[in-house]
């Protein structure tokens, strides 16, 4: 019963709505709202009223405008960076050590014999262009098969318009007819060495790669040829031909602890043959270093045995080393540094870290899983890096276009390395792909950098080592330890000392943080609203309420208007407008805004006798009974 009564009441209240007129509602709102401006509008005198009305409008529009700015700022996802520098116990970087020369010449000599004879003969021809030197008559005939695939030619540009191509081993001269990439680089009086590459369709489609220097041409040519030869050799054989850890790493000391070549992880690097990585962190925990200075770093003595270098392949001699993060692949061509033979190289390290926020603040990837390039370096169990992505991208393109993989990069499954026999046109395909700007752009666009970027800033200094005074005994001991012989088997040209240590400040971390968070946004919005109008979220809710109320009023008006229309149609009799209609709002007890204002009701009705008040109720336009059930039915 009670419940029913309650429900009916609720229904009535809903039906009734706010019961104000628009003006009433607005006045009520202005009077009772918590925002600061509106109250003034109704409380002040007419002039001030106007002023306050415009002020309130101005402030409200200012608030909305500035809210727009704030939200825009938030959506641009700015970041601020904080920098911290100092020393802390950190993981010692992984150190990759390689020889600049990939294979021992004594081991690969049988494979490269033909090639070497060829290049020697070619050089002989180039350097002494006058025929008749009987030196090569003694040697066995050259195998020109290799040569004919990619020959070296000379271009005589005495005559600018009509350059003459001169094959070194043949006497016939051909005028250039169909060269595609012929740009006359050399000056008119000079001879240029060029190595042409023809696609396998036939000799018509040829590209000449011009070199202004013969040294450069010979080196490039040799690299192309030897790549083709070595790619046929199985991996374990190539590892055997490279430098072995026990031959290369003569001494090792990490802090106070001795270490030896067994602490190094072997990895086969296509550029540099066998490389050895210290503290790679693949199997065991990475080493920490908690002290700065050379005393607590890694000290290495390496032997690069320069006599065993392949003469035409690598002209620079030394060790190639690189510091990198644990579990990342060393890209020595990009980030590696040289250490010179016969010197002691000291490398002070500062870890330069950059920590980024990722999407939507910056476009980076956490582990490379969202990059649309198959990471070929994952077969080494290494983490994603931008270099790995770029190389994988190139290799994927190469496999797609040329049908075989390049020797310098890891292979996708089911693909072989390129060589001259199976893929006669690969060199042409490779060099056109390599110089293609479009291909590079595709790779740059599809690869993303990692969010946590760690670089090792190095301060490199060098000194002669061993000194003249200590030379003898050092060589003696090292030779004895390695070869168990009392003869000195080492010399200045092969021996390198390395010190790698943390500097006094060993880290510099730049970390990003969002400049605008949602908390920032809310407090700024609140600040703006509060600053101009003293408002809060509740004020917004109030405003919303008022809008709902005015909607109600509209509905009620519409209903009563409809009803009035119906009744008017029913009764053409127009009722006179009564005073009560005008003063309805003020007399309606439900909506008396200020009971203390005006005249108190008690005094308004003096008790003195007089004419009895007219019974205004009789003025009612229609009998209440007629309306009652109607409205309840609504």
């Amino acid at each position, binding site marked *: 019963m009670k419940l029913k009564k309650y429900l009916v009441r609720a229904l009535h209240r809903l039906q*009734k709505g706010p*019961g104000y007129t628009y003006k009433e509602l607005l006045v009520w709102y202005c009077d009772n709202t918590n925002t*600061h401006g509106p*109250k003034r509008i109704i409380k002040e*005198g007419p002039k001030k009223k106007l002023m306050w009305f415009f002020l309130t409008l101005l402030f409200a529009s200012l608030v909305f405008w500035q809210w727009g700015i704030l939200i825009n700022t938030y959506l641009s996802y700015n970041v601020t*960076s904080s920098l911290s520098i100092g020393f802390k116990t950190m993981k010692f970087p992984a150190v990759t050590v390689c020889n*600049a020369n990939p294979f021992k010449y004594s081991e690969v000599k049988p494979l490269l014999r033909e090639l070497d004879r060829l290049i020697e003969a070619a050089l002989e021809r*180039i*350097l002494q262009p006058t025929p008749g030197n009987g030196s090569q008559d003694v040697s066995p005939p050259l195998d020109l098969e290799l040569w004919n695939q990619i020959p070296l030619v000379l271009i005589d540009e005495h005559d600018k318009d009509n350059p003459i191509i001169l094959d070194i081993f043949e006497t016939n001269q051909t005028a250039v007819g169909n060269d595609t990439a012929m740009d006359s680089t*050399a000056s008119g009086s000079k001879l240029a060495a060029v190595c042409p590459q023809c696609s396998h369709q036939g000799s018509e489609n040829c590209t000449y*790669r011009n070199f*202004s220097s*013969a*040294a450069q041409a*010979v080196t490039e040519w040799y690299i192309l040829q030897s790549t083709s030869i070595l790619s046929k050799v199985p991996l374990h054989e190539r590892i055997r031909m490279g430098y072995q850890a026990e031959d290369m790493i003569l001494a090792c000391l990490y802090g106070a602890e001795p270490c030896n070549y067994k602490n190094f992880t072997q990895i086969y690097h296509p550029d540099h043959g066998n490389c050895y990585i210290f503290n790679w962190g693949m199997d065991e925990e990475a080493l920490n270093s908690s002290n700065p200075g050379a005393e607590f770093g890694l000290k290495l003595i390496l032997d690069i045995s320069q006599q*065993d270098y392949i*003469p035409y392949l690598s002209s*620079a*001699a030394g060790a190639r080393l690189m510091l990198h993060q644990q579990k990342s692949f060393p890209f020595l*061509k*990009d*980030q590696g*540094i040289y250490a*010179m*033979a016969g010197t002691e190289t000291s490398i002070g390290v500062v870890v330069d870290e*950059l920590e980024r926020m990722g999407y939507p603040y*910056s476009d980076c990837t956490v582990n490379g899983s969202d990059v649309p390039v198959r990471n070929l370096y994952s077969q080494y169990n290494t983490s994603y890096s931008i270099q790995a992505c*770029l190389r994988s991208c190139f290799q994927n393109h190469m496999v797609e276009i040329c049908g075989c993989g390049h020797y310098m990069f890891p292979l996708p499954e089911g693909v072989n390395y390129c060589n001259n026999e199976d893929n006669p046109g690969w060199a042409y395909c490779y060099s056109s792909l390599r110089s293609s700007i479009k291909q*590079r752009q595709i790779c*740059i666009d599809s690869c993303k*950098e990692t969010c946590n970027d760690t*670089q090792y800033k*190095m301060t*490199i200094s060098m000194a002669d080592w061993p000194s003249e005074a200590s030379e003898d005994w050092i060589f003696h001991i090292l030779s004895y330890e390695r070869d168990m012989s009392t003869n000195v088997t080492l010399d200045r*040209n092969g021996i390198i000392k390395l010190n790698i240590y943390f500097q006094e400040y060993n880290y510099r971390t730049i970390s990003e943080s969002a400049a605008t968070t949602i908390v920032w946004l809310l407090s*700024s919005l609140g600040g*703006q*609203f*509060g*600053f*101009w109008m*003293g*408002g*809060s979220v509740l004020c917004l809710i109030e405003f919303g309420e008022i809008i709902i109320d005015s909607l109600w009023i509209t509905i*009620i008006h519409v209903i009563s208007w409809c*009803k009035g229309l119906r009744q008017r149609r029913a009764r053409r009799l127009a009722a006179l407008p009564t005073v009560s209609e005008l*003063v*309805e709002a*003020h*007399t309606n*007890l*439900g909506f008396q805004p200020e009971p203390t204002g005006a*005249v108190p009701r008690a005094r308004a*009705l003096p008790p003195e006798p007089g*004419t009895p008040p007219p019974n*205004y109720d009789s003025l009612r336009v229609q009998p*209440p009974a007629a*309306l*009652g059930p109607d*409205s309840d039915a609504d």
Partner: protein
Amino acid sequence: AATAPGKKITARLKRTLPVRGPQAPTVSELMRWYCLNTNTHGCRRIVVSRGRLRRLLWILLTLSAVGLILWQCAELLMNYYSASVSVTVQFQKLPFPAVTICNINPYKYSAMKEYLSELDKETKKALETFYGFSEGKPKVRRSVDDWNSTGSDFFQQIPLLKVEEFSRTATDLYSGQKRKIEGSVFHKDSSIVNSGDSSDIIGFQLCDANNSSDCALYTFSSGVNAIQEWYRLHYMNIMAQIPLETKEKLSYSAEDLLLTCFFDGLSCDKRHFTRFHHPLHGNCYTFNSGENGTILSTSTGGSEYGLQVVLYIDEAEYNPFLVTSSGAKIIVHDQDEYPFIEDIGTEIETAAATSIGMHFTQSCKLSKPYSDCTETGADIPVENIYNKSYSLQICLHSCFQKAMVDSCGCAQYAQPLPAGAEYCNYKKNPNWMYCYYRLHEKFVKEQLGCQQICKDACSFKEWALTTSIAQWPSVASEDWMLRVLSWDKGQKLNKKLNKTDLANLMVFYKDLNERFISENPANTLVILLSNFGGQLGLWMSCSVVCVIEIVEVFFIDSLSIVLRHQWQRAKKWWHGRQRGKEPRASEPQRQGHDNPVCIDEDLPTFTTALRLPLPQDSPLPRTPPPNYSTLRLDTAFTEQLPDTLELGQH
């Protein structure tokens, strides 16, 4: 009759636009009214709370809140011009920087012979006199033929001296006569000078040509420094007289310097290099200078994709006194920047491969009012005598050169010429050396004001270099490499190159990450205002409206109340004087709410709302007002619920 319409108008005006002062008659009433009606919190508490202690507490709290607001807002204002730093790393195709390569030796010694033979003779003589050194057998160099001719008077003007510290006497190189040192003694490297046992110090004396008593003696702890400095002074004198075209011919040509060149997997040659004449380093060659409008870029990092050059150093042509080290100098810079190779160049060793890995960083600072830097250098009152974009180095050098031209009348040789000036030499400016040294002293001690005028540039590009060296050519490849390079050099040079004459250089991007460090304003006006709003709201729930209220109440209203009081007093006093001693029972001072002036427009009453005439004050009996409650119109809903009625009556 004439005044009647005027009065009417004013009365009407008064009625329609009543000019009324504050509603409260006294200041204290006004305050009370303000406190009760203001939107700010705290004030109301003061009025409402009972008990003296409580009221005091609330006054204190309100005042401290106001103080806090003022303090915090001041703090906010002071921190307005702060900047936040953001570091963005972008992986992209990078423009390759300009690489300027110079031989350390500026000019071919053999070609310079005709200009320098005099000077060299002098130097050798000095060496023999002071140290007993004579060139036994010239290894590579040509000996100077005639040894006995006397030196020219220029060298006699500024001779090398052997100074005995204790007796303060100097021995002249030529006459051998001793003379007393006058004037001040400048030690070029002073830390070693007072070591006591060094009895003889080498130096030279510079005198003001107009006033020979004004002399300065420059001494050096080591003869090596003294001779080099002395040689350089004379060398600059001589070089200043040679026109630029001749100097360019005397120096190395691009073919001389560059043996091979390789960029981004493609061959390049001297046409990719731009000549740039440096006063101290002779002809330098800039790769990728952007002169023909195109700037090369790299889209792959790594040593194969950068610049690889083999340089021919030609040690046989080195000037033995001017440069004592051999090799090349390179500098990596932006295309718009001037290469200050003598200041920040990197030296390249011969017989070695130097690999230089670059890392690109671009920085951008906010200019005024955030920090004191300049965007274009246009606001610096120093003329840029280099035709390159502004940098701090350029400004300092320009400033010094300007001071030099102003005070010495000629320009220093190592820097470009300002308009209308010429380089210093003995013939025209016999006094310049002394002047230069004095000026340089001032410059170093920051007395010229250059360091104060010059500001750093707001944005700059930086290439961080990681340099490492390997032996080159390797023992195994040395033979063929040298042979082929000799062939490259050309058949006319019919000798095999020596590996100490060669240097291999690789300049490449380590990675293509561009680090962009930029400062952004930490605050905008919007944020400042929101912070103000936050502070005002937190402590007092105040807003701009409250501020306007405060201005209105505390300044305008109280002022007008005070003025009104003063006016009334003055009026009373005036009336009193006019009426003389005629005492008149003055009307009781209308105070407070009785004051008709202060009858405020109350909340609309029934009568005012309807604009009915005000009720007459006459106590005549009349019809009582009708009971309007009964006049209720029928609304859509007849039944007034009791709870809403109650609400309405409140």
